[in-house]
């Protein structure tokens, strides 16, 4: 029975589904089923979660979410993370990956250092970052002080909480991004670099004309994955601000909003509506991203 080539045969289909079955069952039960329940919940005006009884079918919950000023903050912050923090994180990772790959000594050591955050305890990291951002005693303000920059009340000022969150988010993503890019860089055949040097390209040109185009599939991969992840930021908010969501709710993200509405306020149908909005948004943007990236990415 050959099921690799040719047409979709009935037998081939059966075999394929058998391979897929375990994953399919688990994902259906633990992702799709609750997702459908959430969709259903979101369509009620008010909903008794415990009894699965709702009243007032319609889009009232969506309207409530969309009119909620906390949700507006959440959307703004989430977009900031996705469109500013995430790209910045990838750029920094890229720089680090390029630097690490350009050295010969201690390469493994630096790789280990830069990957370590991936396994460090979230609680420990949260506490440390709260201290780093401390307006009087924080290390970050200390460094800014060296450049005569006034101390910033990162976590106290509603206008700066999002930057604190973004910095923390960037930090948290460096490990994974750097490792992936590092290998990406190392997988680029050396001959291109030799050729470029013979062609007289300076290092800046080599990076922009050779390395980056060669890395583009990796970067796109990270962007798509990072984008989805940045839309789901929750732990970072919790780690920095506890369950309050920052001064005057200024550090809300969409998932934090969902979480608060669900567990804190017990208004599950509203939370579900917000989740549906989020899901649809991620889906749309990811599809656009994939379509756009097809145009620009170079595949070997």
């Amino acid at each position: 029975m050959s099921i690799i080539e040719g047409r979709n045969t009935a037998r081939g289909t059966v075999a394929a589904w058998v391979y897929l079955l375990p994953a399919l069952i688990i994902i259906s039960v633990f992702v799709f089923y609750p997702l459908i329940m959430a969709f259903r919940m979101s369509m009620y005006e008010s909903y008794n979660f415990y009894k699965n009884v709702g009243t007032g079918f319609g889009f009232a919950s969506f309207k409530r979410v969309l009119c909620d000023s906390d949700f507006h903050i959440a959307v703004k912050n989430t977009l900031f993370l996705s469109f500013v923090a995430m790209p910045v994180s990838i750029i920094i990772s890229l720089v680090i990956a390029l630097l690490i790959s350009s050295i010969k000594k201690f390469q493994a050591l630096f790789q280990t250092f830069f990957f370590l955050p991936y396994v460090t305890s979230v609680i420990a990291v949260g506490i440390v970052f709260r201290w780093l951002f401390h307006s009087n005693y924080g290390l970050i303000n200390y460094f800014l002080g060296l450049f005569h920059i006034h101390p910033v009340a990162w976590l106290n000022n509603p206008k700066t909480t999002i930057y604190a969150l973004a910095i923390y988010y960037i930090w948290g993503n460096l490990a994974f991004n750097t490792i992936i890019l590092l290998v990406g860089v190392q997988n680029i055949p050396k001959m291109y670099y030799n050729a470029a040097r013979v062609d007289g390209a300076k290092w800046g040109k080599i990076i922009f004309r050779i390395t980056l185009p060669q890395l583009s599939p990796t970067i796109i991969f990270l962007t798509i994955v990072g984008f989805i992840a940045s839309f789901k930021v929750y732990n970072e908010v919790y780690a920095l601000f506890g369950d309050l969501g920052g001064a005057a709710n200024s550090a809300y993200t969409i998932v934090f909003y969902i979480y608060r509405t669900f567990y804190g306020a017990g208004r599950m149908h509203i939370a579900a509506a917000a989740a549906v909005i989020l899901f649809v948004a991620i889906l749309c943007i990811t599809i656009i991203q994939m379509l756009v990236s097809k145009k620009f990415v170079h595949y070997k």
Partner: protein
Amino acid sequence: MEVVEDIKDKSPRHRGAKIIIYAVLVFGSFWMLLPFVWMILTSLKSLQEAISVPPVWFPSKPLWSNYQKALSVAPFGRYFLNTVIVSSVNTVLTIIVTILAAFSFARLKFVGKNLLFTLILASMMVPGEMLIIQNYVTVAKLGWIDSYAALIVPWIASPFYIFLLRQYFMQIPDQLYYAARVDGCRDFKYLWKVMVPNAKNTIVTIGILNFVASWNAFLWPLLVTNKERMRVLTIGLTEFTNEAGSDVHLQMAAATFIILPMIIVYIILRPYIIEGVSRSGIKG
């Protein structure tokens, strides 16, 4: 790696650049290591030192007894065992499920493939926080509360890993498959004998990512367990916080204890991770 003395190594400008590169990397490493170092230092401080502002870097006298205290708060031995069991079994099952699904998506032709793959990709985009209660209900209905099944089964099919491995599988040349067919190798055997060994690094990577995630999971294990003998390490960490404050020093001692195995695993398997993570997902 071949160490080639490059002509550019000899120019003085290049040497200057090298110094800058190392400086930047050391500076970066400092920030990467900071939480980790701080965690260990704090685990040896008194509560007063731990919460003092401005922060005290080094404990005046390292309190090794913090570890003893922290570990006596909860049955950490049992938690440790459970965590090891759950993370290992979870990882093995995840790998099996992922391999089967990725193979199907990468190599087989069947009706509904694209639709299904899109659906699975889409499920990557669902925030887990909104699913958790419904999943608890499901698990409770299955009678799995306080069982390893509850801790493990819901997490063994990750759309992300399936996607990752499928990408890698797609890169394995078709010739290998034809060669295997000519040698009388059936699909299933081909998968285990050719594709899996080929994708070893990616699989190890998935295993490690999954293991770390499983090791650090908190909310779900808390939800589905009531009996102390079924609980895991991360739950122990919450024993140090309450409404009015937290015993940071003990918390850090426990946290150090919890992540140490992860770091050891990482250091041992680092070459695989580096190889594996990156090889995947390069082709879209």
